[in-house]
């Protein structure tokens, strides 16, 4: 196929992403007309079968949307349902939730950095391949991931789909003695995390800029993880917030004229959630070690280069490890593992920062506590527009600058998509599942 004129490029199956997707790119007379991230992951209908379930069930059920970030689903679900029932959990339980969530950040970020993303920068097909040339690095990554999983296992019972989370708190809270061995493992992980930032900072980063708006939760005095106020940072630097209950008024599905896929937009504009957004909005609240690591790695107060998202993730791992240690050191078992959450006929909203970005849940309950309506808005569904935008821009540059071949473009697009760590299993909710026949 010639490089000029019209061409259609397909990347049949995207590797090293969670879930299954493909990319469809249309170029006409040297102009990129369309980049469509196609999701052929079959629909699983969570929002449909949550109807009629008891309000106590969404934390266990929605965990199964995604095996890589089950805690995010459990936390957003608990928060939304507790919000509907007018219950707030107190400090020690909130801290334990945050600790569990730190485990997921460490585990999921380490997975993404070492197993899914780093091979792109080092010219390898996989981490196993990478281990042949740099076994020390891969072992460090696996050790880090293990530290995250150890937290999840202790607090949640197991790392994937933890069983210990319930409305109002936990089924059982750990004793101080149970958390102590974790602290030792985490101190080692702190060292591994700092080395990770240094390692990643040495990668070769192409130039690129995302111009989408950033959306992340923000809290007054802490780097937001398990809650906060939706906060938008525009490319021009303006910062605005909106109350969580109006989330669906701001983040809306929209039909894009040239495509049948639905995209979500933030007040009509493309937006990006995830590490770049969190860092830009709350970076000043990172721990001293994480700030130091960011500075050493050459990150300014804001990073808009999607390739460098791997660096921001690494900095977030340093933070999550520090934060986990801080919580463990201050831990005193709460008097009760959970607070009671009696059902109320109401609607509740919950949002937390999944490793990949903001995850919003909304539930409507009747007086008996039966779920009558459920809405889940995962990060990838929000990011998809910005990812496609990024693809169009970068492919255009590659074609204009040096007439890139199909092979180069395929590789470029795969890399670009992996920058954003899309979790395709959870994105299906929004997407066009028909395979375009041309």
């Amino acid at each position, binding site marked *: 196929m010639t490089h000029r004129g019209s061409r259609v490029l397909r990347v049949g199956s995207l*590797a090293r992403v969670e879930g299954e997707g493909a990319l469809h790119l249309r170029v006409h007379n040297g102009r990129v007309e369309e980049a469509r991230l196609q999701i052929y992951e079959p629909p*699983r*209908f969570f929002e449909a079968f949550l109807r009629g379930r008891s309000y106590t069930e969404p934390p266990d059920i929605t965990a199964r949307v995604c095996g890589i970030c089950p805690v995010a689903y459990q936390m957003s679900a608990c928060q939304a349902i507790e919000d509907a029932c007018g219950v707030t959990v107190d400090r020690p339980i909130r801290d334990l939730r945050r600790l569990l969530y730190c485990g997921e950040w460490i585990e999921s970020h380490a997975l993404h950095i070492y197993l899914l993303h780093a091979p792109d920068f080092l010219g390898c097909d996989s981490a196993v391949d990478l281990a042949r040339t740099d076994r020390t690095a891969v072992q460090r990554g696996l050790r880090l991931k293990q530290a995250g999983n150890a937290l999840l296992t202790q607090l949640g019972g197991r790392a994937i*789909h933890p069983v210990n989370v319930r409305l109002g708190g936990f*089924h059982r809270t750990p004793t101080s003695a149970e958390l102590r061995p974790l602290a030792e493992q985490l101190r080692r992980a702190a060292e591994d995390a700092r080395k990770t930032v240094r390692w990643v900072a040495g990668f070769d980063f192409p130039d690129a800029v995302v111009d989408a708006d950033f959306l992340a939760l923000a809290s007054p005095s802490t780097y937001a993880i398990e809650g906060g106020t939706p906060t938008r940072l525009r490319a021009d630097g303006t910062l605005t917030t909106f109350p969580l209950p109006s989330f669906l008024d701001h983040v809306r599905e929209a039909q894009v004229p040239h495509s049948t896929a639905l995209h979500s937009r933030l007040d009509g504009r493309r937006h990006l959630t995830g590490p770049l957004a969190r860092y830009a909005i709350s970076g000043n609240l990172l721990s001293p070690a994480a700030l130091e690591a960011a500075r050493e790695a050459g990150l300014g107060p804001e990073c808009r280069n999607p390739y460098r998202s791997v660096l921001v993730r690494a900095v977030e791992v340093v933070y999550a490890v520090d934060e986990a240690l801080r919580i463990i050191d201050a831990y005193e078992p709460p008097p009760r593992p959970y607070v009671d959450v009696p059902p109320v006929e109401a609607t509740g909203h919950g949002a937390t920062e999944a490793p990949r970005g903001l995850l919003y849940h909304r539930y409507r309950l009747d007086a008996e506590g039966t779920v009558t309506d459920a809405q889940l808005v995962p990060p990838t569904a929000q990011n998809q527009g910005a990812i496609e935008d990024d693809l169009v821009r970068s492919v255009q540059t590659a074609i204009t600058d040096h007439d890139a071949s199909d092979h180069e473009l395929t590789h470029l697009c795969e890399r670009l998509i992996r920058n954003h760590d899309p979790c395709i299993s959870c994105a299906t909710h929004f997407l066009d599942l028909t395979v375009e026949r041309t």
Partner: protein
Amino acid sequence: MTAPTLAVFKLASCDGCQLTLLDCEDELLALAEKVEIAHFPEASSALRPGPYDLALVEGSVTTPADAERVQEIRAQSRFLVTIGACATAGGIQALRNFSDVEEFTRTVYARPDYIDTLATSTPVSAHVDVDFELRGCPIDRGQLLEVITAFLAGRKPDVPNHSVCFECKRRGTVCVTVAHGTPCLGPVTHAGCGAICPAYGRGCYGCFGPSGSVNLPALIPLLHRDGMDDRDTERFLRTFNAAAFAKERQP
């Protein structure tokens, strides 16, 4: 001798079961020296064509395309092992089997006409012969390693099919039903997790599916005694292994 080839495939699922393989942090690199990871899109962009010695299949069959794909996977694989509740019992998405899938589609999608889905979510064994089924939502890491090792050594995996109750006894956990009147599916649920839930003070919710010998008529009155009405019982049995427990209920 060349290393046996391992392939991992995914149908409708959450990726949790295949992630269990990457969660074998201590064994992952050693395993990669014993087998050739020939096809594992989540972990490697080098995808080699079949045939494969051992295929692990995650997820259930929910689309016409996947129904075809599972035939191809079978044709390419010497041994085919299904991993997890989705692949062995249809998973949580099998809740559609008890409902109207068109209504589900309208609930979730603005343009239901784009959606090409089957009215049921079925396990892989409903479509092709399966050499071994590993249970769990998600599967247990230790059991996964046992299954892979056993197939590589040409022996039968040592995965007992007794109930979670045995594992509570082994772990020394006090029975939550006897001691606290907590509804628990442990007596009818397949062992494998190590009885996590009772150890954390809650009843088993059946994520490993039915065990070898299930006596639901004996269990249901106990659930009623512990405060569950018919609707609660129904939902309790209809979650991650809905289709498998429903089958057990048929006389």
